[in-house]
Structures are given as structure tokens and as C-alpha cells.
């Protein structure tokens, strides 16, 4: 590509890029622009159900009306308003993602602490620690989606059961991230100093190990948020998620796909676009957050 850009003219000397310092970045996106899309989506999640023009879970008009003035995104094959459903689903999907993120991060960090501290201990404690560690390794070999299908099938489809299913899927990674950090700091001198100062083992772990080992899992939590939205929708798409008429993006897409073949593209396209935009906005936030925390700690 021979496009001359401002950045090129600033750096006219050709250097072997293999050894040169990283090329100067193009202008960085301002912070508000990074967080604005996700902020808007959260606002829609909070206020959306009060703003929608139609009841999202009722048949409000004849089936399969093309997008127009009355129904902005058209109606689906049963006659429910697609716009209202897409907006209403935002809340369900965000709440699920939020609860999954909170539970995996909290439980993951705690289990990571316990496993990391007790792994090399003797007796029952060490045995259990190594056992949990083995289970985490095993979970690598099971496709996450299949576990989700089994667990969601186990409890029946509801917001709670799906959240549990997703937490089970995403927990091992959080444990592993924390455990690796615990192993790094476990033998540091300040822990021995605290022990000698009379702190109990629990105090040592909570006051000294926890703050020094929780960062990777916290940084990863925004990734967990995004992935849990995707997996929840995938489960909905496969028919084991929240069942219609509950508004949920995944099941809306799966219900709308057969309509695409008939030329009615709107009932699947809009939820798919909403899901993609949400996940993309989360991803852009997570990148910015990581840069922010890294920058501050230096």
C-alpha cells in the first residue's frame, strides 16, 4: 500500500522495523468515546423496558411486517414487535452477564487463593488443593458450550440457571489466573513478616496475598462479561436458553433464522446486530480499562 499518511511524513527515515522502537501510534481515541457506547447500552438496559412502544412479550400486530413507521424493526413470525424485544432483551442479557461476572470473579479469586496457598501443603488440605487444580486442568478438555448445555438442561431454562451454567464455564480461567499470581507471591518476605507480627493465616491471605494477586482476574473480568453475553446467546440460539416469549437475543436470532430464507431478514438481523454492538462496546471498554490500570500502577 502506497498511501502516504501524516504519520509517514513525520517518520520519513526508513528503519528496519524489526529493530526499531514501536511505530508511533496514530492519535488515541478520547476516553469518553471509548466508554460512551457501553454507557448508552447500559442506559438502554435500565430505562429500555419503560421506553418501548409495545409489550415485548405479547403479539401486537400481524406477523412478519417489514420494518416501517409503525414497527421500526418490523414484527417477527408470531407478530411480536422486534424493536421492543431487542430493547427489552438488553436488560436480561446485561443482568445475566453482570451476575456471571461478579460470581466468577469473586468465587474465582477466593478459590484461586485457597488452591494456590494450600497446593503444596500436606495432608487433606494439600490433597484437596491439588484435586481442585486437576479438575481445572480437566475442564480444558470439555467444550465450554457443551458444559453449558448440560448444566442449563440440568436446572431448566431460567435467568438463574443460565447464570450458574455460565459461571461454571468461566470459573476455571479466573481460578487459574489468581492461582498463578498466588504462586508468584506466596514465598515473598512480607508474608513472613506479617506472620511474625502475629497475623493469623487468614489475615495474611486476605490482607497481603489477596491485594497482590487479584489483578489478573479483575482485568479478565471484563473479558468474562463479554464472553458470558456471547455464550448466553449461543445457548439461547441452540434452544436451551431462555425460552420465548422471554425477550433474549440468542433465542430471537434462532427463531428469526428460518425467516431469512423467506426474505424476512429483520427478525434475526436486529438482535444479531444488537448483540455484536454490545460485545464490541464491552471489548473496547476492557482494553481501555486495562491500559488505565496498567498506566496508573507504573
Amino acid at each position, binding site marked *: 500500500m502506497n498511501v502516504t499518511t501524516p504519520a509517514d511524513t513525520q517518520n520519513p527515515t526508513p528503519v528496519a522495523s524489526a529493530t526499531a522502537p514501536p511505530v508511533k501510534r*496514530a492519535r488515541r481515541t478520547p476516553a469518553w468515546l471509548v466508554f460512551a457506547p457501553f454507557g448508552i447500552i447500559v442506559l438502554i438496559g435500565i430505562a429500555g423496558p419503560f421506553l418501548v412502544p409495545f409489550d415485548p412479550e405479547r403479539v401486537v400486530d400481524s406477523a412478519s411486517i417489514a420494518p416501517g413507521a409503525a414497527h421500526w424493526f418490523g414484527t417477527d413470525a408470531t407478530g411480536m414487535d422486534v424493536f421492543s424485544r431487542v430493547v427489552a432483551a438488553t436488560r436480561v442479557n446485561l443482568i445475566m452477564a453482570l451476575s456471571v461476572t461478579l460470581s466468577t470473579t469473586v468465587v474465582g479469586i477466593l478459590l484461586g487463593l485457597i488452591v494456590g496457598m494450600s497446593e503444596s501443603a500436606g495432608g487433606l488440605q494439600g490433597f484437596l488443593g491439588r484435586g481442585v487444580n486437576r479438575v481445572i486442568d480437566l475442564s480444558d478438555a*470439555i*467444550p465450554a458450550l*457443551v458444559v453449558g448445555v448440560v448444566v442449563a438442561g*440440568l436446572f431448566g431454562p431460567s435467568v438463574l440457571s443460565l447464570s450458574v451454567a455460565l459461571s461454571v464455564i468461566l470459573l476455571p480461567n479466573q481460578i487459574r489466573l489468581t492461582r498463578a499470581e498466588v504462586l508468584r507471591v506466596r514465598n515473598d518476605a512480607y508474608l513472613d513478616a506479617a506472620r511474625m507480627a502475629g497475623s493469623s493465616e487468614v489475615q495474611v491471605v486476605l490482607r497481603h496475598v489477596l491485594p497482590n494477586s487479584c489483578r489478573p482476574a479483575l482485568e479478565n473480568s471484563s473479558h468474562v462479561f463479554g464472553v458470558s453475553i456471547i455464550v448466553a446467546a*449461543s445457548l439461547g440460539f441452540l434452544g436451551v436458553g431462555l425460552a420465548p416469549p422471554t425477550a433474549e437475543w440468542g433465542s430471537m436470532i434462532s427463531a428469526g433464522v428460518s425467516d431469512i430464507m423467506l426474505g424476512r431478514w429483520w427478525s434475526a*438481523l436486529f438482535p444479531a*446486530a444488537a448483540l*455484536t454492538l454490545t460485545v464490541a462496546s464491552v471489548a473496547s471498554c476492557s482494553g481501555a480499562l486495562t491500559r488505565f490500570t496498567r498506566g496508573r500502577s507504573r
Partner: protein
Amino acid sequence: MHLAVFATAAFFLVRVVPGDPVLATVDATQGLTQEQYDAAAAALGLDGSIWSQLGNFWVGVLQGDLGSSSVTGRPVASEIWSRLPSTLELVALGLGGAILLSLILAVVVLTSRNAVVLRVVRQYAKMAGAIPDFCVGVLGIVLLYTMLHIVPAPLGRVDPGTSLPLVTGFPVLDSLLTVRFDALTQQVAHLALPWLVLVLTYTPTIWRQLLLGLDEQAAAAPTLFRIASGATRPAIYASILRRACAGAVVMVGALFGGLVGGVVVLEQLFSLGGVGQFAIDSVDSVDFLALQGFLVAIAAVCLIAFLVVDLVNMLLDPRRRPGAGGNS
């Protein structure tokens, strides 16, 4: 050894699924005596205590016998074996494309000095895990099928009425082997969009690891040594790439294992059939033996993928070979 532990885990995971496969298969509307129930359970291999079932399952796995499906009555192993190749082929094609694209991006990063191009390419790495594949699939279908009519309808691997040759079970490979160019071109047309979705969705995950490796190795001592000793530029790039690959290779292995089960969403979207659909169906119909057989098969595929990863990394990096000192 790993497989035995895993088989046990799969066995218990499947047993916690609610529902009774015996009741699901027999017609219980006119009531069911205990003898009839026991006979049906024995026919499915679900009689005896849970421990004797586990023992039978272990012996079966070692012999390649996974029992019979409680729904179709056919052996689970052959049910899986008839579906697994097409899934493996799709995943392999998709990841192959993703690896190729990652390598192309790596060459771009190493050679380009265009800040905009570099920024776009680096930004692409940050989308790892942030693209829902089936949404991209839906957008693709709406754009390329409904609006532009470039790709055929997402309804199967070939146009209706065309039969697929069967030699090895890998559909595209079979069409090549039997020189069935009609089936081949149709499959290429039908698989083009799902393949593209796979490549675009999963490249960032591989690419991010590769980029981390590149950034780490670009100015490392071995690179400087190559430059100082007057190696040509392609040789320097090849050297950097070779050292940067390890993380990406591990990621490919992990993705492969995850996708063999996870690609089911795309397979369903494009009606391609495959082994994932079999698992979803068996959850729906409470088919214990089918589900645990599926889990064991997937685990076996994952273990093979991890083995290949280790072998590839040994080929790329002599320091990883066993007995190579191991002090690094």
C-alpha cells in the same frame, strides 16, 4: 490415563442430567411394571448400580465400544464416527485459514511502516473473543444471501438432490478423492460463508498471541545477532516468526478442542450437520450413553490436539525437545 479420568468425569457429568432415559424410550402411558422397567434398563445398559455401570463404561471405552444410543438403538461409536469427520474438517479448514491470515498479518506488522495499517492490524488483535460467531454468520447471510445473492441458501452442504460421496467421511476430501467436481464446487459455495465467519472470528485469538510473541522477540538478542551477522531481511523475519510462534500454536490447539464442540452453533445456523448437533439432541432426549460417548470422543480429540501442539512446538524450538538441557 488422562482419558480414563476424563471418562469418569464425563460419566458423572452426564448422570447429573435430570430425567430418566429409560422412561424416555419406553411407552409408559399404559403404566409400567417394575419387570418391564428393569428389562428396558438392561437393554440400554443402565441396569445395576452406578459403580457397575461405570466399570462397564471403562471397559467399553478401552475397547472402543461406547454402548448403544437409547434413541436410535445404533452404536454410539458409529453415530459419532459418522458425524465427527465433517465437524473436524470444518474446524480444520477454518483454523487453517485463521493461521494463514495470522501469518500474513505477522508479515505485515514486520514489514509495514504505515501507521494506519499497523494500528488497524493491532486493533484487530484486541477483538479476540469479542466477536459472536453466529451473529457474524447472520449478518453474512443477510448481506450475501438475502441482499446480494452471492452465496447459496444456508441449507446444508450441497444443493438439494446432490448426493455426497463417502470414502473417509470427510465430505470435502471425499469429493476430491472420488473426483466429484459437482459436489466439490457446491460444497465450496456452501461452505464459503461459514468458513469466512470462522476465519474472521477466530483469527484475532491466534493473532493476539502471535503479536505478543512478535513484540517480545522483535528486539530480542537472537534477532540482534542475526542482524549483526548480516543475515538477509527475510531470514531475520523468519527467525523472529519462528521464535514468536509458541504461544500462538498453543492457542490453536486450545481453539481446536473448543471448536469441535463449539462450532455446533455455526453448523446449526448453516444446517451443516455435525457431531455437536448430536450432543444437543442427546441432551434433549436424555440419551446418557450418547452424551457420555460424545464427551469422551471430544476429550480424545482434544488430547490429540494438545499432543500435536507439543510436537509442533518441539519442531519449532529445539529448547522444548526432551533431553535438550531444559535450563531455559
